[in-house]
């Protein structure tokens, strides 16, 4: 099980639920499980076969640019956060 934190802007789709535990081994599966639980959430997080541009995933506070193929392990905490670069 991994813990997925729902971005505040998507709470409208989860009835106010802020985090859920799902069974998954990568981010693609995380999104699929979320979609089963909260229909409509996938298209808010993804654009076609990729994470929506401007979003990135943090797994146990480690940012990853691997998007949907990033692997997750039991006990991981997952956040979807804005991508940032820098000057």
């Amino acid at each position, binding site marked *: 099980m991994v813990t997925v934190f729902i971005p505040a802007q998507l709470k409208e789709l989860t009835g106010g639920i802020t985090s859920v535990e799902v069974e998954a081994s990568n981010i693609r599966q995380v999104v699929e499980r979320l979609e089963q639980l909260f229909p409509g959430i996938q298209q808010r997080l993804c654009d076609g076969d990729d994470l929506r541009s401007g979003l990135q995933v943090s797994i146990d506070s480690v940012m990853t640019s691997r998007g949907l193929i990033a692997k997750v392990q039991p006990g991981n905490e997952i956040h979807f956060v804005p991508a940032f670069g*820098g*000057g």
Partner: protein
Amino acid sequence: MIKNNGNGEYRVLGTRPVRHDGADKVTGKAVYTADVQLPGMLRGFILRSPIAHGLIKSIDTSAAKATPGVHAVITSADMPDVGDKIADLGEGAVNLKYLSGNVLAQDKVLYKGHAVAAVAAVDIHVAEEAANKIIVEYEELPSVTWVLDAMQDDAPLLHDDLHTDSMGAKSENPSNICTHMHFEKGNIEDGFAQCDVVVEREFKTASVHQGYIEPHASVGDWNEDGRLRIWTATQGSFSARQQTAEILQIPIGDVVVTPCEIGGGFGGKIAVYLEPLVGMLSKVSGRPVKISMTRADVFEATGPTPGSYMKVKIGATNDGKLIAGEAWLAYDAGGYPGGMIGPGCMCVFSCYDIEHAVVDGYDVCLNKPNTQAYRAPGATQVAFATEQLVDEIAKQIGMCPLEIRQLNAAKEGTVRVDGPKYPPVGLVECLEALEESDHWKSSLDGPLRGRGIAAGFWFGCGLKSCATVTVNHDGTVNLLEGSTDIGGSRTSLAMQLAEVLGITSDDVNPMVGDTDSVGYTDVTGGSRVTFATGLAAYTAGRDLQTQMISRAAEEVWDCSPDEVTLENDGSFTHNGESKTFKELASQLFKHGEPLVARAAVSPENPTNGFGVHVADVEVDPETGKVTVLRYTTIQDAGKAVHPSYVEGQLQGGTVQGIGWALNEEYFYHDNDTVANASFLDYRMPTMLDLPMIDTIIVEAANPDHPYGVRGVGETPIVPPPAALANAIYNATGTRMEQLPMSPPVLWKQLQSESAEA
């Protein structure tokens, strides 16, 4: 001065060798883009919009084309249609339609200075004269340059197909608001209910420019073999290659970008402006073409970092614990959607452990050039707000401003408002260093003098980097890497390689390759080069050593590789026999294949740079002028590879922050055109405006780098406006709610407050 936490003994790191490109840069030999000369090269000039907002009804280029000496004239009609496609540029994604529209306006001009047509001719004067013969008919539209005005329903709309994106949901009606972001942590009502003291203020900050001294310049040569060669002033040659290929709709492998020496960037030389134009002009004319922007072009058509409106509220208990924070932020996007609001939201409370928080952020189109990153993009504005409110709370509860920061400082495990927790970070160490500093311990006497402190944060990113190491006969090495060198990074990378291999910095010849010769490397930005490309140099060094161990086993010592030991000083030993790196390398060279090593890395974690600044000021009540008497910048560098260049980053960033704080701003005429597009009227700090900038480098190792390196480039611009505002408050008792805190602004505020009193 360096405070080391004792993590390791180094031979090369921490020393201050002369940079490898130094001699070229003090003799005038270094080649910047404007210095490139090619046989038959033409010069280009860009015709720009004289108005802030309007429809292009028609463009007549016939007179320009007929001018003797003119070889090409192009408008957006000559550019390929890129469609509505998102391109991922590594450091961020961008819609090509917008990128291309910013390079050459399509049916609309969105700000004064927006490029409308480009001319290539035998010299710059002919090109300029011909460009001025182009007749453009505009239908002028109402314009808007203040972010809150641009958010109104009845505001002039810049793009009628732009709908507000709220994490994937689109607004029904078109709007200038490109993006709405929203973050929550804890329970904000409960949070504020627990507070004994709550402070809330509104702030606004003006648009400022990165102010690099080298204007943008590019040279393009569309070769007969169909390949486009570009020489350009860019922070990222691969990013420039990709943007150029996408805008011109040609295969990426047909473009080769050679990064020239670059005269400053600070985030403003990542987006392309000129590269596609010199490419297209070269294609049309069959000759190489160079365009250098004028300084007015630079101010009017590139850069600025977002102006902002911010409303921030923070609550605390009487014992100084920050409990709740709320922020509502609106940032300029410029003519096209921007990218600074995300980090703005994530940074507004990033220095503190605040249990309950809500942040709303809006990215808003208005009639200014498309905003660009500027050192810690989005973070300086919010620090100006938050750091003043923290001081205000301290004042109300009678606590020292340092103590309240120490009490609430973010540390390992602190959860930021966007969710992730920090790994080990160095804010607490920076605050400790401040407490122990001579500056903090010194007294500041005299009327209208005050001292202020502020903290700041920037993520620092990893991204992709490559490095190749080749070994010469004598055991010296060449390091080929792809990070354009803006401030001495060749040397900080060479030093990391030298450290691994047990040789000196001078034994390494670093070189920045073009996009054909080096592996993909992301932009020089995000405080990433010394960290991520440094990691590539380190890893390539390790690869080289691994090869040398097995070759030494096979070719020198006739043993198995695990019987060869790599010593800490980089030498190789077997059975009591020892060879230095150079000895072994030349021996292997003589009797076998040349040695080549490589590395490709993409470290993904932010390096999390924290800094704390302290400023002493004196305010002249007659003029409102603020004089900075003394300034100290303290920052966690993880490990300072070349301390002089770390200090230089701290000092340079700090002074940019001081300029942002006290003087810099765009002025607009009533018709929303820029009124001060020159260095005379856009007043950046000169030498005479400043004291020495003292630095204290804290070294709290970054667990994600073998030497503990953190990015340092961006954080130092974040605290100065807030530190100076706090100092001004302590000098005068007046709270500054706008940037810049220029003499007229401060003078008026002091006048009206003394009239009230």
